[in-house]
Protein backbone atom coordinates (compact mmCIF):
# COMPACT_ATOMS: atom_id res chain seq x y z
CA UNK A 1 0.00 0.00 0.00
CA UNK A 2 1.43 3.35 -0.95
CA UNK A 3 0.50 6.85 -2.00
CA UNK A 4 1.64 8.33 -5.31
CA UNK A 5 2.93 11.85 -5.79
CA UNK A 6 3.23 13.25 -9.32
CA UNK A 7 5.40 16.33 -9.03
CA UNK A 8 5.59 18.71 -12.00
CA UNK A 9 5.69 16.02 -14.68
CA UNK A 10 6.27 17.34 -18.18
CA UNK A 11 6.63 15.15 -21.26
CA UNK A 12 7.57 16.21 -24.76
CA UNK A 13 7.94 13.90 -27.78
CA UNK A 14 10.29 16.05 -29.83
CA UNK A 15 8.38 19.27 -30.48
CA UNK A 16 5.03 17.76 -29.38
CA UNK A 17 4.17 18.40 -25.74
CA UNK A 18 2.08 15.53 -24.39
CA UNK A 19 1.96 16.67 -20.76
CA UNK A 20 2.75 20.11 -19.39
CA UNK A 21 3.63 20.28 -15.73
CA UNK A 22 1.11 17.88 -14.22
CA UNK A 23 1.07 17.58 -10.43
CA UNK A 24 -1.27 15.49 -8.33
CA UNK A 25 -1.38 13.33 -5.23
CA UNK A 26 -3.11 9.96 -5.03
CA UNK A 27 -3.81 8.87 -1.46
CA UNK A 28 -2.99 5.40 -0.13
CA UNK A 29 -5.80 3.03 -1.15
CA UNK A 30 -7.52 5.58 -3.36
CA UNK A 31 -9.01 4.75 -6.76
CA UNK A 32 -8.19 7.59 -9.17
CA UNK A 33 -9.42 7.67 -12.76
CA UNK A 34 -7.54 9.60 -15.44
CA UNK A 35 -10.30 10.63 -17.84
CA UNK A 36 -9.99 12.42 -21.15
CA UNK A 37 -10.40 12.16 -24.92
CA UNK A 38 -7.76 10.34 -26.95
CA UNK A 39 -4.56 12.33 -27.25
CA UNK A 40 -5.08 14.16 -23.95
CA UNK A 41 -1.98 12.59 -22.38
CA UNK A 42 -3.70 10.26 -19.90
CA UNK A 43 -2.00 7.11 -21.16
CA UNK A 44 1.37 8.90 -21.30
CA UNK A 45 0.95 9.89 -17.65
CA UNK A 46 0.12 6.31 -16.67
CA UNK A 47 3.13 5.01 -18.58
CA UNK A 48 5.37 7.53 -16.85
CA UNK A 49 4.11 6.30 -13.46
CA UNK A 50 4.82 2.73 -14.64
CA UNK A 51 8.29 3.64 -15.88
CA UNK A 52 7.51 2.60 -19.45
CA UNK A 53 8.03 6.18 -20.58
CA UNK A 54 10.60 8.66 -19.26
CA UNK A 55 9.37 12.10 -18.18
CA UNK A 56 11.11 15.13 -19.67
CA UNK A 57 10.89 16.95 -16.33
CA UNK A 58 9.50 16.28 -12.87
CA UNK A 59 9.41 13.44 -10.34
CA UNK A 60 7.25 10.45 -9.47
CA UNK A 61 7.15 9.32 -5.82
CA UNK A 62 5.55 6.02 -4.82
CA UNK A 63 5.17 5.49 -1.08
CA UNK A 64 7.49 8.42 -0.45
CA UNK A 65 10.30 6.92 -2.55
CA UNK A 66 11.51 8.75 -5.65
CA UNK A 67 11.14 6.19 -8.46
CA UNK A 68 11.70 8.65 -11.34
CA UNK A 69 14.81 6.89 -12.59
CA UNK A 70 13.97 3.28 -11.66
CA UNK A 71 13.02 0.69 -14.28
CA UNK A 72 9.43 -0.64 -14.10
CA UNK A 73 10.38 -3.82 -12.25
CA UNK A 74 11.77 -1.86 -9.28
CA UNK A 75 8.74 0.38 -8.75
CA UNK A 76 6.61 -2.20 -6.89
CA UNK A 77 3.57 -1.92 -9.10
CA UNK A 78 1.38 -4.06 -11.34
CA UNK A 79 -0.44 -3.13 -14.50
CA UNK A 80 -3.41 -4.26 -16.59
CA UNK A 81 -2.94 -3.46 -20.26
CA UNK A 82 -5.55 -2.40 -22.77
CA UNK A 83 -5.03 -5.46 -24.98
CA UNK A 84 -4.52 -7.54 -21.76
CA UNK A 85 -0.98 -8.59 -22.87
CA UNK A 86 -1.58 -12.05 -21.44
CA UNK A 87 1.42 -14.12 -22.55
CA UNK A 88 0.16 -16.51 -25.24
CA UNK A 89 2.92 -19.10 -24.72
CA UNK A 90 2.12 -19.63 -21.04
CA UNK A 91 -0.87 -21.29 -19.40
CA UNK A 92 -3.27 -19.16 -17.40
CA UNK A 93 -1.67 -20.50 -14.21
CA UNK A 94 1.83 -19.50 -15.36
CA UNK A 95 0.55 -16.12 -16.49
CA UNK A 96 -0.93 -15.41 -13.07
CA UNK A 97 2.24 -16.73 -11.39
CA UNK A 98 4.59 -14.77 -13.68
CA UNK A 99 5.20 -11.79 -11.38
CA UNK A 100 5.64 -14.00 -8.32
CA UNK A 101 8.14 -16.26 -10.07
CA UNK A 102 10.14 -13.26 -11.31
CA UNK A 103 10.19 -11.97 -7.73
CA UNK A 104 11.59 -15.33 -6.62
CA UNK A 105 8.65 -16.36 -4.46
CA UNK A 106 8.76 -19.94 -3.13
CA UNK A 107 6.41 -22.58 -4.54
CA UNK A 108 4.04 -22.51 -1.53
CA UNK A 109 3.54 -18.75 -1.78
CA UNK A 110 3.11 -18.90 -5.56
CA UNK A 111 0.44 -21.60 -5.22
CA UNK A 112 -1.40 -19.78 -2.46
CA UNK A 113 -1.49 -16.41 -4.17
CA UNK A 114 -2.34 -17.80 -7.59
CA UNK A 115 -5.23 -19.72 -6.02
CA UNK A 116 -6.46 -16.58 -4.22
CA UNK A 117 -6.28 -14.37 -7.32
CA UNK A 118 -7.94 -17.06 -9.44
CA UNK A 119 -10.77 -17.40 -6.93
CA UNK A 120 -11.29 -13.64 -6.75
CA UNK A 121 -11.64 -13.36 -10.53
CA UNK A 122 -13.47 -16.71 -10.99
CA UNK A 123 -10.90 -18.17 -13.38
CA UNK A 124 -10.18 -21.44 -11.54
CA UNK A 125 -11.71 -23.56 -14.35
CA UNK A 126 -9.27 -22.19 -16.91
CA UNK A 127 -5.98 -22.41 -15.04
CA UNK A 128 -4.49 -25.09 -17.28
CA UNK A 129 -5.66 -23.55 -20.54
CA UNK A 130 -3.74 -21.31 -22.89
CA UNK A 131 -4.94 -17.73 -23.52
CA UNK A 132 -5.81 -18.50 -27.14
CA UNK A 133 -8.53 -20.84 -25.82
CA UNK A 134 -10.20 -18.07 -23.79
CA UNK A 135 -12.76 -15.42 -24.68
CA UNK A 136 -11.93 -11.72 -24.43
CA UNK A 137 -13.68 -11.39 -21.09
CA UNK A 138 -11.84 -14.38 -19.65
CA UNK A 139 -8.49 -13.03 -20.85
CA UNK A 140 -9.35 -9.75 -19.18
CA UNK A 141 -9.88 -11.61 -15.90
CA UNK A 142 -6.54 -13.36 -16.29
CA UNK A 143 -4.81 -9.99 -16.79
CA UNK A 144 -6.39 -8.63 -13.60
CA UNK A 145 -5.57 -11.81 -11.68
CA UNK A 146 -1.95 -11.60 -12.82
CA UNK A 147 -1.78 -8.05 -11.51
CA UNK A 148 -3.46 -8.82 -8.16
CA UNK A 149 -1.43 -12.00 -7.56
CA UNK A 150 1.72 -9.98 -6.80
CA UNK A 151 -0.21 -7.98 -4.16
CA UNK A 152 1.05 -4.72 -5.60
CA UNK A 153 1.20 -1.49 -3.62
CA UNK A 154 0.02 0.29 -6.75
CA UNK A 155 -2.20 -1.02 -9.54
CA UNK A 156 -2.23 0.73 -12.92
CA UNK A 157 -4.97 0.04 -15.46
CA UNK A 158 -4.95 1.24 -19.06
CA UNK A 159 -8.51 1.14 -20.46
CA UNK A 160 -8.89 -2.46 -19.32
CA UNK A 161 -12.55 -2.73 -20.33
CA UNK A 162 -12.42 -1.02 -23.72
CA UNK A 163 -12.14 -4.28 -25.69
CA UNK A 164 -15.21 -5.88 -24.08
CA UNK A 165 -18.78 -5.59 -25.35
CA UNK A 166 -21.28 -3.35 -23.57
CA UNK A 167 -22.93 -5.94 -21.30
CA UNK A 168 -19.66 -7.57 -20.25
CA UNK A 169 -18.19 -4.12 -19.58
CA UNK A 170 -21.05 -3.31 -17.23
CA UNK A 171 -20.57 -6.58 -15.37
CA UNK A 172 -16.78 -6.38 -15.15
CA UNK A 173 -17.06 -2.79 -13.94
CA UNK A 174 -19.13 -3.74 -10.92
CA UNK A 175 -16.92 -6.75 -10.27
CA UNK A 176 -13.67 -4.75 -10.52
CA UNK A 177 -15.05 -2.17 -8.13
CA UNK A 178 -15.99 -4.89 -5.63
CA UNK A 179 -12.63 -6.67 -5.86
CA UNK A 180 -10.55 -3.50 -5.57
CA UNK A 181 -12.63 -2.08 -2.71
CA UNK A 182 -11.80 -5.12 -0.62
CA UNK A 183 -8.12 -5.25 -1.69
CA UNK A 184 -7.49 -1.61 -0.76
CA UNK A 185 -4.85 -1.19 -3.46
CA UNK A 186 -3.96 2.30 -4.67
CA UNK A 187 -5.30 2.28 -8.21
CA UNK A 188 -4.78 4.57 -11.21
CA UNK A 189 -7.26 3.84 -13.97
CA UNK A 190 -7.05 5.36 -17.45
CA UNK A 191 -10.22 5.61 -19.52
CA UNK A 192 -11.89 7.73 -22.18
CA UNK A 193 -15.32 6.48 -21.11
CA UNK A 194 -16.86 8.86 -18.61
CA UNK A 195 -19.44 6.33 -17.37
CA UNK A 196 -16.60 3.97 -16.44
CA UNK A 197 -14.74 6.71 -14.59
CA UNK A 198 -17.89 7.89 -12.81
CA UNK A 199 -18.89 4.37 -11.77
CA UNK A 200 -15.51 3.19 -10.56
CA UNK A 201 -13.41 6.02 -9.18
CA UNK A 202 -13.17 7.71 -5.80
CA UNK A 203 -11.83 10.77 -7.62
CA UNK A 204 -11.53 11.61 -11.31
CA UNK A 205 -8.79 13.72 -12.91
CA UNK A 206 -10.05 15.11 -16.22
CA UNK A 207 -7.17 15.71 -18.65
CA UNK A 208 -7.33 17.88 -21.73
CA UNK A 209 -4.38 18.60 -24.08
CA UNK A 210 -1.78 17.65 -21.50
CA UNK A 211 -3.29 19.58 -18.55
CA UNK A 212 -5.49 18.56 -15.64
CA UNK A 213 -8.75 20.45 -16.02
CA UNK A 214 -10.29 19.30 -12.75
CA UNK A 215 -9.79 16.69 -10.04
CA UNK A 216 -12.85 15.88 -7.98
CA UNK A 217 -15.27 13.21 -6.86
CA UNK A 218 -17.64 11.96 -9.58
CA UNK A 219 -20.60 13.78 -8.05
CA UNK A 220 -18.79 17.13 -7.71
CA UNK A 221 -17.43 16.82 -11.26
CA UNK A 222 -20.94 16.24 -12.55
CA UNK A 223 -22.66 18.99 -10.58
CA UNK A 224 -19.92 21.63 -10.57
CA UNK A 225 -17.69 21.34 -13.65
CA UNK A 226 -14.89 23.87 -13.34
CA UNK A 227 -14.59 24.35 -17.11
CA UNK A 228 -16.76 24.10 -20.16
CA UNK A 229 -14.67 21.15 -21.37
CA UNK A 230 -15.43 19.12 -18.22
CA UNK A 231 -19.15 19.87 -18.48
CA UNK A 232 -19.18 18.79 -22.11
CA UNK A 233 -17.07 15.65 -21.59
CA UNK A 234 -18.60 14.26 -18.39
CA UNK A 235 -22.19 13.16 -18.62
CA UNK A 236 -24.08 11.66 -21.52
CA UNK A 237 -25.67 13.51 -23.21
CA UNK A 238 -23.30 16.37 -22.39
CA UNK A 239 -24.17 19.58 -20.59
CA UNK A 240 -25.94 22.31 -22.61
CA UNK A 241 -24.19 25.66 -22.95
CA UNK A 242 -26.13 28.80 -23.82
CA UNK A 243 -24.37 32.12 -24.31
CA UNK A 244 -26.67 34.82 -22.87
CA UNK A 245 -26.63 38.59 -22.38
CA UNK A 246 -27.01 39.94 -18.85
CA UNK A 247 -27.98 43.29 -17.45
CA UNK A 248 -27.75 44.41 -13.80
CA UNK A 249 -27.20 40.91 -12.46
CA UNK A 250 -30.03 39.33 -14.39
CA UNK A 251 -30.59 37.59 -17.69
CA UNK A 252 -33.81 37.35 -19.68
CA UNK A 253 -34.38 34.03 -21.43
CA UNK A 254 -37.56 34.50 -23.42
CA UNK A 255 -40.19 34.48 -20.71
CA UNK A 256 -37.78 33.60 -17.91
CA UNK A 257 -35.67 35.89 -15.74
CA UNK A 258 -32.69 34.48 -13.86
CA UNK A 259 -30.16 35.99 -11.49
CA UNK A 260 -26.79 35.95 -13.26
CA UNK A 261 -23.19 37.00 -12.59
CA UNK A 262 -22.43 40.69 -13.14
CA UNK A 263 -20.88 40.44 -16.58
CA UNK A 264 -22.07 41.52 -19.95
CA UNK A 265 -22.08 38.07 -21.50
CA UNK A 266 -21.98 34.76 -19.68
CA UNK A 267 -22.45 31.10 -20.56
CA UNK A 268 -25.25 29.27 -18.81
CA UNK A 269 -24.50 25.56 -18.35
CA UNK A 270 -27.32 23.14 -17.55
CA UNK A 271 -27.59 19.36 -17.84
CA UNK A 272 -30.19 17.95 -20.26
CA UNK A 273 -32.09 16.27 -17.41
CA UNK A 274 -32.26 19.56 -15.46
CA UNK A 275 -34.32 21.33 -18.12
CA UNK A 276 -37.92 20.77 -16.99
CA UNK A 277 -40.98 21.33 -19.14
CA UNK A 278 -43.10 24.26 -18.00
CA UNK A 279 -46.03 26.44 -19.03
CA UNK A 280 -43.73 29.31 -19.87
CA UNK A 281 -39.98 29.92 -19.92
CA UNK A 282 -37.23 29.21 -22.40
CA UNK A 283 -38.67 28.47 -25.85
CA UNK A 284 -37.31 25.20 -27.28
CA UNK A 285 -37.90 23.95 -30.84
CA UNK A 286 -37.62 20.19 -31.28
CA UNK A 287 -35.57 19.01 -34.24
CA UNK A 288 -35.18 15.31 -33.46
CA UNK A 289 -36.84 13.17 -30.78
CA UNK A 290 -35.16 9.88 -29.92
CA UNK A 291 -37.10 7.44 -27.71
CA UNK A 292 -34.47 5.76 -25.55
CA UNK A 293 -36.78 3.54 -23.47
CA UNK A 294 -36.14 4.97 -20.03
CA UNK A 295 -36.35 8.51 -21.40
CA UNK A 296 -36.78 10.50 -24.62
CA UNK A 297 -33.81 12.49 -25.86
CA UNK A 298 -34.83 15.73 -27.56
CA UNK A 299 -32.38 17.62 -29.77
CA UNK A 300 -33.29 21.09 -30.90
CA UNK A 301 -32.72 24.79 -30.47
CA UNK A 302 -33.26 27.48 -27.89
CA UNK A 303 -32.10 31.10 -28.27
CA UNK A 304 -30.74 29.97 -31.66
CA UNK A 305 -28.30 27.61 -29.98
CA UNK A 306 -28.31 23.78 -29.95
CA UNK A 307 -29.86 22.25 -26.85
CA UNK A 308 -30.54 18.68 -25.71
CA UNK A 309 -33.22 17.72 -23.23
CA UNK A 310 -33.77 14.42 -21.44
CA UNK A 311 -37.55 14.17 -21.22
CA UNK A 312 -39.79 11.47 -19.70
CA UNK A 313 -40.22 8.41 -21.90
CA UNK A 314 -43.92 9.11 -22.55
CA UNK A 315 -43.16 12.45 -24.23
CA UNK A 316 -43.22 12.19 -28.01
CA UNK A 317 -43.04 15.67 -29.57
CA UNK A 318 -42.97 15.82 -33.37
CA UNK A 319 -40.05 17.48 -35.19
CA UNK A 320 -40.66 21.23 -35.39
CA UNK A 321 -42.83 21.36 -32.24
CA UNK A 322 -42.26 24.28 -29.84
CA UNK A 323 -42.33 23.93 -26.09
CA UNK A 324 -41.19 25.77 -22.96
CA UNK A 325 -38.61 24.56 -20.46
CA UNK A 326 -37.09 25.91 -17.23
CA UNK A 327 -33.67 25.02 -15.87
CA UNK A 328 -33.68 23.84 -12.25
CA UNK A 329 -32.17 26.90 -10.56
CA UNK A 330 -29.92 24.94 -8.15
CA UNK A 331 -28.39 23.03 -11.08
CA UNK A 332 -27.19 25.98 -13.17
CA UNK A 333 -23.47 26.61 -13.78
CA UNK A 334 -22.22 30.01 -15.00
CA UNK A 335 -19.09 30.13 -17.13
CA UNK A 336 -16.88 32.74 -18.72
CA UNK A 337 -17.58 32.89 -22.49
CA UNK A 338 -13.91 33.53 -23.35
CA UNK A 339 -11.95 31.17 -21.07
CA UNK A 340 -14.69 28.60 -20.51
CA UNK A 341 -13.88 28.60 -16.78
CA UNK A 342 -16.64 28.42 -14.19
CA UNK A 343 -17.32 31.78 -12.53
CA UNK A 344 -16.26 31.15 -8.94
CA UNK A 345 -17.71 34.42 -7.62
CA UNK A 346 -21.13 33.05 -8.33
CA UNK A 347 -20.45 29.65 -6.81
CA UNK A 348 -19.39 31.19 -3.48
Amino acid at each position, binding site marked *: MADIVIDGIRKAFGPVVALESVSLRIADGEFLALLGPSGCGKTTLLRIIA*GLETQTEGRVLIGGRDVSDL*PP*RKRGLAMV*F*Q*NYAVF*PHLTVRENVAFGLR*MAGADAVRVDRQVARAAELLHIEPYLTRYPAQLSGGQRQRVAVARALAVEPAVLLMDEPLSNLDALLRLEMRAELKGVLQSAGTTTVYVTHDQTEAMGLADRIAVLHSGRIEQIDTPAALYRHPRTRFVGGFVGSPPMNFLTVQTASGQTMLDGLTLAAPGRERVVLGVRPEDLEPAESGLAFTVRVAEPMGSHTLLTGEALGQPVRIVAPSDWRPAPGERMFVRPRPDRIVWLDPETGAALEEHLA
Partner: protein
Amino acid sequence: MSARPGTGRRTLFLCGLGALCAWTLVPIYLIALGAIGGPGLISRWPKPFWPEGSSLAALRYFLDIAGVWSATLYSVEAAVLCMALSILLGIPAGYALARFAFRGAVAFRLMVLMTRAFPVAILALPLTVGFIRLGLYDSPVGVGVMHTTLALPFAVLVSASLFQAIPHEFEEAAWVFGCSRVTAFLRVVLPLALPGIAATAIFAFVISWNEVFAASVLTVRHRTLTAYLLSVLAESPLHVQFAGGFLLIVPSVLFIFLVRRHLFAMWGIASK
Protein backbone atom coordinates in the same frame (compact mmCIF):
# COMPACT_ATOMS: atom_id res chain seq x y z
CA MET B 1 -12.90 -12.57 -46.79
CA SER B 2 -16.03 -13.55 -48.58
CA ALA B 3 -15.99 -15.02 -52.01
CA ARG B 4 -18.76 -14.38 -54.46
CA PRO B 5 -17.40 -15.06 -57.89
CA GLY B 6 -19.91 -15.05 -60.69
CA THR B 7 -20.03 -18.24 -62.71
CA GLY B 8 -18.24 -16.89 -65.79
CA ARG B 9 -15.66 -15.28 -63.60
CA ARG B 10 -15.26 -18.53 -61.71
CA THR B 11 -14.42 -20.49 -64.87
CA LEU B 12 -11.81 -17.93 -65.85
CA PHE B 13 -10.41 -18.09 -62.37
CA LEU B 14 -10.20 -21.90 -62.32
CA CYS B 15 -8.39 -21.85 -65.67
CA GLY B 16 -5.84 -19.41 -64.29
CA LEU B 17 -5.43 -21.53 -61.21
CA GLY B 18 -4.84 -24.61 -63.33
CA ALA B 19 -2.23 -22.81 -65.42
CA LEU B 20 -0.39 -21.64 -62.33
CA CYS B 21 -0.39 -25.09 -60.80
CA ALA B 22 0.97 -26.49 -64.02
CA TRP B 23 3.70 -23.89 -64.03
CA THR B 24 5.18 -25.22 -60.79
CA LEU B 25 4.20 -28.88 -60.90
CA VAL B 26 5.04 -29.69 -64.52
CA PRO B 27 8.75 -28.86 -64.24
CA ILE B 28 9.04 -30.98 -61.11
CA TYR B 29 7.20 -33.81 -62.83
CA LEU B 30 9.32 -33.57 -65.96
CA ILE B 31 12.51 -33.54 -63.95
CA ALA B 32 11.36 -36.53 -61.94
CA LEU B 33 10.41 -38.29 -65.16
CA GLY B 34 13.79 -37.49 -66.68
CA ALA B 35 15.53 -38.70 -63.56
CA ILE B 36 13.90 -42.11 -63.36
CA GLY B 37 12.91 -42.67 -66.98
CA GLY B 38 16.35 -43.63 -68.28
CA PRO B 39 18.15 -42.24 -71.33
CA GLY B 40 15.50 -43.35 -73.83
CA LEU B 41 12.70 -41.21 -72.45
CA ILE B 42 14.43 -37.83 -72.65
CA SER B 43 14.24 -37.47 -76.41
CA ARG B 44 10.73 -38.93 -76.75
CA TRP B 45 7.86 -36.48 -77.33
CA PRO B 46 5.10 -36.50 -76.30
CA LYS B 47 6.19 -38.10 -73.06
CA PRO B 48 4.13 -40.86 -71.45
CA PHE B 49 2.40 -39.93 -68.23
CA TRP B 50 4.12 -42.76 -66.38
CA PRO B 51 7.30 -44.25 -67.86
CA GLU B 52 7.07 -47.98 -68.56
CA GLY B 53 10.71 -48.87 -68.26
CA SER B 54 11.34 -46.65 -65.28
CA SER B 55 14.40 -47.40 -63.24
CA LEU B 56 16.41 -45.83 -60.52
CA ALA B 57 19.57 -46.50 -62.52
CA ALA B 58 20.26 -42.84 -63.23
CA LEU B 59 19.78 -41.90 -59.62
CA ARG B 60 22.06 -44.73 -58.51
CA TYR B 61 24.67 -43.85 -61.13
CA PHE B 62 24.52 -40.32 -59.92
CA LEU B 63 25.08 -41.23 -56.29
CA ASP B 64 28.09 -43.29 -57.29
CA ILE B 65 29.98 -40.36 -58.85
CA ALA B 66 33.17 -39.95 -56.88
CA GLY B 67 33.07 -37.02 -54.52
CA VAL B 68 29.30 -36.66 -54.23
CA TRP B 69 29.28 -37.57 -50.57
CA SER B 70 32.15 -35.30 -49.55
CA ALA B 71 30.61 -32.48 -51.59
CA THR B 72 27.36 -33.05 -49.70
CA LEU B 73 29.28 -32.69 -46.47
CA TYR B 74 30.82 -29.38 -47.64
CA SER B 75 27.38 -28.18 -48.70
CA VAL B 76 25.95 -28.96 -45.28
CA GLU B 77 28.91 -27.28 -43.56
CA ALA B 78 28.53 -24.11 -45.60
CA ALA B 79 24.73 -24.09 -45.24
CA VAL B 80 24.84 -24.62 -41.47
CA LEU B 81 27.39 -21.83 -41.09
CA CYS B 82 25.28 -19.54 -43.28
CA MET B 83 22.22 -20.41 -41.18
CA ALA B 84 23.99 -19.80 -37.87
CA LEU B 85 25.53 -16.50 -38.94
CA SER B 86 22.25 -15.26 -40.45
CA ILE B 87 20.43 -15.94 -37.20
CA LEU B 88 23.12 -14.61 -34.87
CA LEU B 89 23.52 -11.37 -36.82
CA GLY B 90 20.00 -11.10 -38.20
CA ILE B 91 18.02 -11.37 -34.96
CA PRO B 92 19.65 -8.48 -33.07
CA ALA B 93 19.56 -6.33 -36.19
CA GLY B 94 15.91 -7.22 -36.85
CA TYR B 95 14.98 -6.57 -33.22
CA ALA B 96 16.68 -3.17 -33.35
CA LEU B 97 14.88 -2.34 -36.58
CA ALA B 98 11.50 -3.37 -35.15
CA ARG B 99 11.70 -1.79 -31.70
CA PHE B 100 13.74 1.37 -31.86
CA ALA B 101 12.49 4.41 -33.64
CA PHE B 102 15.72 6.07 -34.65
CA ARG B 103 16.55 8.71 -37.18
CA GLY B 104 17.82 7.02 -40.30
CA ALA B 105 15.77 3.85 -39.80
CA VAL B 106 14.50 4.27 -43.33
CA ALA B 107 17.99 4.77 -44.74
CA PHE B 108 19.12 1.71 -42.84
CA ARG B 109 16.36 -0.45 -44.29
CA LEU B 110 17.23 0.87 -47.70
CA MET B 111 20.84 -0.24 -47.32
CA VAL B 112 19.76 -3.69 -46.26
CA LEU B 113 17.66 -3.93 -49.39
CA MET B 114 20.41 -2.57 -51.59
CA THR B 115 22.49 -5.65 -50.98
CA ARG B 116 19.87 -7.43 -53.09
CA ALA B 117 21.00 -5.27 -55.99
CA PHE B 118 24.60 -6.49 -55.94
CA PRO B 119 25.35 -8.74 -58.87
CA VAL B 120 26.92 -11.45 -56.76
CA ALA B 121 28.46 -13.15 -59.72
CA ILE B 122 30.52 -10.16 -60.73
CA LEU B 123 31.43 -9.25 -57.18
CA ALA B 124 32.56 -12.77 -56.42
CA LEU B 125 35.51 -12.40 -58.80
CA PRO B 126 37.31 -9.53 -57.04
CA LEU B 127 36.27 -10.99 -53.69
CA THR B 128 38.39 -14.07 -54.27
CA VAL B 129 41.43 -11.85 -53.75
CA GLY B 130 40.25 -10.88 -50.32
CA PHE B 131 39.33 -14.46 -49.46
CA ILE B 132 42.75 -15.75 -50.44
CA ARG B 133 44.31 -13.10 -48.20
CA LEU B 134 42.08 -14.13 -45.27
CA GLY B 135 42.75 -17.83 -45.84
CA LEU B 136 39.08 -18.52 -46.54
CA TYR B 137 39.58 -19.48 -50.18
CA ASP B 138 38.54 -23.00 -51.17
CA SER B 139 36.92 -23.79 -47.81
CA PRO B 140 33.26 -24.35 -46.82
CA VAL B 141 33.75 -21.61 -44.22
CA GLY B 142 34.46 -19.06 -46.93
CA VAL B 143 31.43 -20.21 -48.94
CA GLY B 144 29.26 -20.03 -45.80
CA VAL B 145 30.42 -16.47 -45.11
CA MET B 146 29.74 -15.48 -48.71
CA HIS B 147 26.28 -17.04 -48.57
CA THR B 148 25.58 -15.20 -45.31
CA THR B 149 25.87 -11.92 -47.18
CA LEU B 150 23.13 -13.23 -49.47
CA ALA B 151 20.87 -14.56 -46.73
CA LEU B 152 21.37 -11.84 -44.13
CA PRO B 153 19.15 -9.16 -45.70
CA PHE B 154 16.27 -11.64 -45.68
CA ALA B 155 17.05 -12.68 -42.13
CA VAL B 156 17.09 -9.06 -40.93
CA LEU B 157 13.91 -8.01 -42.68
CA VAL B 158 12.02 -11.17 -41.82
CA SER B 159 13.00 -11.14 -38.15
CA ALA B 160 12.17 -7.42 -38.02
CA SER B 161 8.66 -8.17 -39.23
CA LEU B 162 8.45 -11.10 -36.79
CA PHE B 163 9.34 -8.85 -33.88
CA GLN B 164 7.03 -6.13 -35.10
CA ALA B 165 4.19 -8.64 -35.13
CA ILE B 166 4.76 -9.31 -31.41
CA PRO B 167 2.87 -6.56 -29.59
CA HIS B 168 5.21 -4.34 -27.63
CA GLU B 169 2.85 -4.66 -24.66
CA PHE B 170 3.98 -8.25 -24.06
CA GLU B 171 7.45 -6.93 -23.38
CA GLU B 172 6.16 -4.06 -21.30
CA ALA B 173 4.08 -6.48 -19.23
CA ALA B 174 7.20 -8.55 -18.66
CA TRP B 175 9.12 -5.45 -17.51
CA VAL B 176 6.34 -4.41 -15.14
CA PHE B 177 6.14 -7.91 -13.67
CA GLY B 178 9.82 -8.06 -12.77
CA CYS B 179 11.86 -8.69 -15.92
CA SER B 180 14.87 -6.73 -17.07
CA ARG B 181 15.19 -5.97 -20.77
CA VAL B 182 17.30 -9.07 -21.33
CA THR B 183 15.11 -11.48 -19.34
CA ALA B 184 11.99 -10.07 -21.00
CA PHE B 185 13.53 -10.76 -24.40
CA LEU B 186 14.54 -14.30 -23.42
CA ARG B 187 11.37 -15.25 -21.51
CA VAL B 188 8.69 -13.58 -23.65
CA VAL B 189 9.84 -12.28 -27.02
CA LEU B 190 12.09 -15.14 -28.08
CA PRO B 191 9.61 -17.96 -27.34
CA LEU B 192 6.96 -16.13 -29.34
CA ALA B 193 9.30 -15.48 -32.29
CA LEU B 194 10.89 -18.93 -32.26
CA PRO B 195 8.80 -20.63 -34.95
CA GLY B 196 9.40 -17.77 -37.33
CA ILE B 197 13.09 -17.71 -36.54
CA ALA B 198 13.29 -21.41 -37.29
CA ALA B 199 11.68 -20.77 -40.65
CA THR B 200 14.17 -17.99 -41.36
CA ALA B 201 17.05 -20.29 -40.48
CA ILE B 202 15.81 -22.93 -42.85
CA PHE B 203 15.35 -20.35 -45.57
CA ALA B 204 18.99 -19.34 -45.11
CA PHE B 205 19.93 -23.02 -45.35
CA VAL B 206 18.05 -23.41 -48.62
CA ILE B 207 19.56 -20.26 -50.10
CA SER B 208 23.05 -21.52 -49.30
CA TRP B 209 22.27 -25.04 -50.52
CA ASN B 210 21.08 -23.78 -53.90
CA GLU B 211 23.63 -21.03 -54.52
CA VAL B 212 26.06 -22.12 -57.16
CA PHE B 213 27.94 -19.16 -58.54
CA ALA B 214 29.80 -17.83 -55.54
CA ALA B 215 30.41 -21.42 -54.49
CA SER B 216 31.98 -22.23 -57.87
CA VAL B 217 34.23 -19.19 -57.87
CA LEU B 218 35.40 -19.45 -54.29
CA THR B 219 36.33 -23.13 -54.29
CA VAL B 220 38.49 -25.46 -56.31
CA ARG B 221 38.64 -28.84 -54.62
CA HIS B 222 36.25 -28.34 -51.70
CA ARG B 223 33.19 -27.69 -53.81
CA THR B 224 29.67 -27.69 -52.38
CA LEU B 225 27.31 -30.27 -53.85
CA THR B 226 25.57 -27.85 -56.21
CA ALA B 227 28.81 -26.38 -57.52
CA TYR B 228 30.38 -29.83 -57.80
CA LEU B 229 27.45 -31.23 -59.72
CA LEU B 230 27.49 -28.26 -62.04
CA SER B 231 31.08 -28.94 -63.05
CA VAL B 232 30.58 -32.71 -63.32
CA LEU B 233 27.18 -32.74 -64.97
CA ALA B 234 28.02 -30.40 -67.81
CA GLU B 235 29.63 -33.39 -69.52
CA SER B 236 27.10 -36.02 -68.36
CA PRO B 237 24.24 -37.46 -70.40
CA LEU B 238 20.95 -35.61 -70.13
CA HIS B 239 19.12 -38.12 -67.94
CA VAL B 240 21.89 -37.94 -65.36
CA GLN B 241 21.58 -34.17 -65.38
CA PHE B 242 17.90 -34.60 -64.59
CA ALA B 243 18.73 -37.00 -61.80
CA GLY B 244 21.12 -34.44 -60.30
CA GLY B 245 18.54 -31.68 -60.48
CA PHE B 246 15.91 -33.92 -58.93
CA LEU B 247 18.06 -34.89 -55.97
CA LEU B 248 19.04 -31.27 -55.33
CA ILE B 249 15.41 -30.20 -55.13
CA VAL B 250 14.50 -32.85 -52.56
CA PRO B 251 15.94 -31.28 -49.38
CA SER B 252 14.59 -27.84 -50.25
CA VAL B 253 11.09 -29.14 -50.89
CA LEU B 254 11.22 -31.19 -47.70
CA PHE B 255 12.28 -28.18 -45.68
CA ILE B 256 9.67 -25.94 -47.17
CA PHE B 257 6.95 -28.45 -46.39
CA LEU B 258 8.16 -28.66 -42.80
CA VAL B 259 7.95 -24.91 -42.24
CA ARG B 260 5.19 -23.97 -44.67
CA ARG B 261 2.99 -22.13 -42.17
CA HIS B 262 5.82 -19.94 -40.95
CA LEU B 263 6.99 -19.22 -44.46
CA PHE B 264 3.61 -17.67 -45.21
CA ALA B 265 3.87 -15.58 -42.08
CA MET B 266 7.35 -14.52 -43.21
CA TRP B 267 5.96 -13.15 -46.42
CA GLY B 268 3.34 -11.22 -44.55
CA ILE B 269 0.59 -13.45 -45.84
CA ALA B 270 -1.58 -15.01 -43.20
CA SER B 271 -2.56 -18.56 -44.02
CA LYS B 272 -6.27 -18.99 -43.76
